[in-house]
């Protein structure tokens, strides 16, 4: 009979260990079914959380073979097929403190979330008594970000967060900031956005883990781009990230292509580049990786590119 092996990372509050459970294979089951069966039939001390069983409450996410899943929504067959194995390694979500076994601690995260003021700061045009009018279009802006069920999957897989737990905000917190900043009823988007900027917004590495794993298909990387655009509109254009982004934006317009020689200078400034990057540049030149005399020529059709830039200025962006 086919057996599925679950190697589960256990934690009793002091020490952790790996524990192995074998389960006879059954088709058409979910990951949550497997965990429940292990607890009911093999080990009543195994801790995990779940409630709604319908991908609504967000309480059942764990990591399996290095990726995060809602256990109630995820078919066991799908996992076995993805990883082409009958050995599954289960762990609690990454980038969270662990309470017991697969149970993580949400309290510090929710405390942290308060920094972006995840609530509506009402505009004067409405009030708690008279309410607000919102057009369908305005509602559509918040429809998807409001789908977040706080399952923690995006945070579990976030590359920047893993390297920078203190400084960076969990992607679901970025999503909250976004959700309130774009809400037509909110009168103070800056109050949601500025704390994001101050918490290393420009350090997102574009790894696309959050957007790839979110069970609610929230376009978190597009939200990061929006938040960055807004900080620049607020006048925050002199930090390393904004300057780097502008270097690309401007090079395309000037020549059509990136000038790698001037990129560090545009990003970091001439003085810092001279102080910091000289050994790096010499290393590159000696291997023929960069040619300091190479200046990109204007691409064929650059006039057309500039016309597109000019045209884009007049286009209404959502």
């Amino acid at each position: 009979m086919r057996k599925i092996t679950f190697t589960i990372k256990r934690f009793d509050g002091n020490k952790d260990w790996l524990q192995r459970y074998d389960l006879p294979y059954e088709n058409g089951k979910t990951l949550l079914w497997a965990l429940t069966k292990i607890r009911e039939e093999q080990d009543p001390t195994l801790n995990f959380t779940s409630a709604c069983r319908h991908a609504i409450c967000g309480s059942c996410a764990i990591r399996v073979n290095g990726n995060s899943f809602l256990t109630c929504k995820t078919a066991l067959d799908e996992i076995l097929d993805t990883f082409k194995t009958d050995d599954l390694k289960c762990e609690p979500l990454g980038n969270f403190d662990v309470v017991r076994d697969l149970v993580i601690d949400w309290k510090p995260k929710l405390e942290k979330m308060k920094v972006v003021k995840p609530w509506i700061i009402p505009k004067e045009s409405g009030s708690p008594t008279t309410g607000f009018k919102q057009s369908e279009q305005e509602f559509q802006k918040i429809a998807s970000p409001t789908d977040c069920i706080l399952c923690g999957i995006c945070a579990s897989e976030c590359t920047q967060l893993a390297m920078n737990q203190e400084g960076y905000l969990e992607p679901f917190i970025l999503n909250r900031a976004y959700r309130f900043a774009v809400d037509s009823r909110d009168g103070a988007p800056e109050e949601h956005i500025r704390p994001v900027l101050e918490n290393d917004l420009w350090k997102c590495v574009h790894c696309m883990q959050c957007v790839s794993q979110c069970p609610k298909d929230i376009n978190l990387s597009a939200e990061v781009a929006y938040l960055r655009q807004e900080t620049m509109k607020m006048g925050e254009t002199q930090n390393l990230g904004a300057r780097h982004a502008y270097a690309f934006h401007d090079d395309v317009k000037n020549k059509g292509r990136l000038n790698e020689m001037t990129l560090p200078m545009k990003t970091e400034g001439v003085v810092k580049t001279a102080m910091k990057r000289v050994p790096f540049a010499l290393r590159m030149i000696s291997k023929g990786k960069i040619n300091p005399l190479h200046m990109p020529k204007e691409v064929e059709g650059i006039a057309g590119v500039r016309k597109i830039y000019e045209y884009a200025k007049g286009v209404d962006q959502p």
Partner: protein
Amino acid sequence: MKYGFFPGCTLESAAEELMISTKKVASALGIELIELEGWTCCGASHIQDVDDFLGVAVNARNIALGEKFDAPILTVCNTCTLMLRTAKDRLDHDENLKDKVNEGLQQANLEYRGTSEVTHLLWALIRDYGLENLRKKVKRPLTGLKVANFYGCHIVRPPKIMGFENHMNPQSMEMVAEVLGAESVEFDQRLACCGFHAVFPAEKEVMGMTRINCLSPKAAGADCLVTPCPLCQMQLDMYQPDAQKGCDENITMPILHLPQLIGLALGFEPEELAINRHIMDAIPTLKKTLTFA
């Protein structure tokens, strides 16, 4: 087989060795690459942070240049692929956006129609060329060479845009390595991010990532790491000496571009593939298992 070739900026500057090796490999395989005339930088996952619409429009222009050939567009860079495919996905699913973008393109005498696919060399080899055909071209099997396949984020994520294979357990790199005769090692960081896009604002974190990304294949016994993305290659190779600083363990790991690995198996010498251009010298390691002229 014919493709509209979108090299991307790095192939003209810091990763010229990828231009050299890509062209050698393509011609040895009989794949025709016609460079798109007047292509621009794809925005490298930064342009949308300044102007979202512009990011789409610039890449609609790039794709429109390719559509002139009535052939798919081929890249050798993960991020170029993602930027072009993201624009394509949005244009193909949003008539209103497409109309607006085309109004702009018209001023440059171009039109986005949506007729050309955007693919990456890795996918083209598997889907169009065929691994069995590739196998027939192997002249110097890479027997005994242990490679760590480092995919890089943007060739698999987000799956909605990339979609060639399962983003949680892709196998394309392993399939190609197998055909070339190399042995793929299993290592933790196989699907990790190189951090290149934030190397300026997040220098400390990204250097830490580079360290891990070199140590992980090393611990798994890899002779070299190979990647389908020039940006991953740059981050892991060019910045390796910086990442080494302040780390007691030796992190040395040679980093190859995918076409260089293929080229070696097709019988080219390391210099012909410009492998001598890397900051971390890969040639001594390769010489341990492979024979060169």
